[in-house]
């Protein structure tokens, strides 16, 4: 009996330090994941150290430098108000990526407990939760956030809150399915038989096993959130000028596409690189942490 339990326990990927260093060791052999991880770490550094990295004040413009092409002084040129594009892109990381992080965090704060609760309780509660989430999944978040912005007005706060709620189904679905599997595991049964309280079973056995799936989904969700926030800001519904953001810089750049293409190109490339980074990292993490799902 003991011999049967042991391999399952290892398979469940307990959060011991050794298993996490194993994960990193295996990630190193995965070029996709390493490229993604490098991009993500660099972006996080830019967020934290933006004031030190940016060569100019992002909101201060010299009118004589309007739409200057890239040169020594302005590495990526200047925009229609003579502001340094590079510095604005650097500060724009804060709204774009910061917003996406907030969206995913909100969705996890609601989605993880909801998924565990629904999967663990089962019965009609699970049935109702699953049905509602399936319906929400079918409807694109961006469309409902249009309605939110129309009702509450355009701002990054409204955008982040609405997307955060609309992203709940993505994470809940995954956490619920992991919970369903873990609930039937021998060690969960054993813990139940020993009379441990539900909270201990959930925090010691169910939740730790959700962590790896949550990390994979978060990385991919961050990519989606970056795209959605960029789209809303591009449409003038998210981050409002003069606050620098990749999305609104792209739409400003589109207006002067013929005379100063570097504006739109640099802003668009930043979005592309950031989204690609999170997609690569998410794919790589899935290969390493969740081989069963990766095969599909």
């Amino acid at each position: 009996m003991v011999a049967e339990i042991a391999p399952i326990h290892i398979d469940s990927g307990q959060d011991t330090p050794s298993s996490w260093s194993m994960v990193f060791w295996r990630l190193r052999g995965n070029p996709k994941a390493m490229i993604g991880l490098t991009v993500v770490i660099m972006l996080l550094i830019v967020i934290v150290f933006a004031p030190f990295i940016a060569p100019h004040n992002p909101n201060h413009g010299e009118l004589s430098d309007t739409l200057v092409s890239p040169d020594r002084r302005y590495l990526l040129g200047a925009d229609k108000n003579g502001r340094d594009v590079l510095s604005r892109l650097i500060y724009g990381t804060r709204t774009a990526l910061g917003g996406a992080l907030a969206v995913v965090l909100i969705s996890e704060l609601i989605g993880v407990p909801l998924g565990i609760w629904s999967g663990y309780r089962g019965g009609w509660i699970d049935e109702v939760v699953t049905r509602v989430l399936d319906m929400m999944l079918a409807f694109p978040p961006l469309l409902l956030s249009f309605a939110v912005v129309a009702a509450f007005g355009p701002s990054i706060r409204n955008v982040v809150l609405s997307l955060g709620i609309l992203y709940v189904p993505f994470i809940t679905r995954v956490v619920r399915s992991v919970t369903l599997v873990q609930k039937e595991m021998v060690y969960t049964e054993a813990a139940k038989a020993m009379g441990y309280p539900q909270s201990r079973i959930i925090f010691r056995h169910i939740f730790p096993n959700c962590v790896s799936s949550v990390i994979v989904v978060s990385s991919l969700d961050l990519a989606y959130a970056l795209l959605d926030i960029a789209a809303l800001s591009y449409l003038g519904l998210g981050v409002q000028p003069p606050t620098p953001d990749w999305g609104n810089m792209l739409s400003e750049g589109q207006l002067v596409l013929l005379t100063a293409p570097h504006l739109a190109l640099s802003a668009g490339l930043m979005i592309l690189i950031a989204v690609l980074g999170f997609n690569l990292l998410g794919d790589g993490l899935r290969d390493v942490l969740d081989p069963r799902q990766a095969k599909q």
Partner: protein
Amino acid sequence: MLRLILTRLLTLVPMMFIITSIVFFMVRFVPGDPARIMAGGQRVTEANLQNIRKQYRLDKPLPTQYGLWVKDLAHGNLGRSFRQRADVRVLIADRLPITIQLALLSFAVSLMISLPLGILAAVRPNSWIDMVSTTFSLIGASSPVFFTSILLILAFSYKLNVLPALGRGEGGLDTLKHLIMPAIALGLSLAAISTRITRSSMIEALSQDYIETARSKGLHGRQIVLKHAFRNALIPVVTVAGLQFGYLVVGTVLVDYTFGLGGLGALLIDSVQRRYYPVVQGITIFIAALFILINLIVDVLYGVIDPRVRYGGRS
């Protein structure tokens, strides 16, 4: 088959209920006077506000408002826009044709790229074509469709000067010319996802026993790939095509805005920017209803492709 359709219809009713509730109650919980929001967030006279309250029944209790509104919807009435002084149905009908053309063209572009690319990548795993397919999927899924659009405009309108950058043209061939770039931009975006799915479901199908059997019967490679494997790989592809409808709608909105096509997407964005809530509400409900229809069609398609679905019990 009829039973399949009916049961699916019944399960889709709650979705409509949830969407209508969200759209309806949200605007009524915004701090401030809902009549002002319905007016488009601008200055209006007290007499106008009274008019709006009457028109949108804001003077009645909430449950009554909701009941009457749903009754209107059931009759196909999406309400009126106070600002444009027009029936929302008319506003939508004006803009719909160009949006449908864009959606169909984009979908065609997506299929033309993703099916051959996905199948070839699956038949020859780890070859150069597989590399191309994987790289294309990754970059295509990561590039915002409006950025892809801008790149196309730079290349084909400004550098090569072969296609118009903006507008919807003057009908006929001219409109088609204006639709080429938008359809390619959106088609590339859609193809990124479906190439990946086509590839993985083809690999799955090609590893089945019946493929071995077909091979041992001495059938040709092409026959095996197209007749035996592809038909079975179609189910996930149709699923994704159905799921992609959501992305297709969002994509048409974004592309419409970027290229200034003046379709339904442009109307929606314009209404959101000016906060014409009744129009946004009407379009959202309209799209939700379309969703239900498409979901139904996809389910029926399953039945057509896979007899196991038709005769009860999903595989």
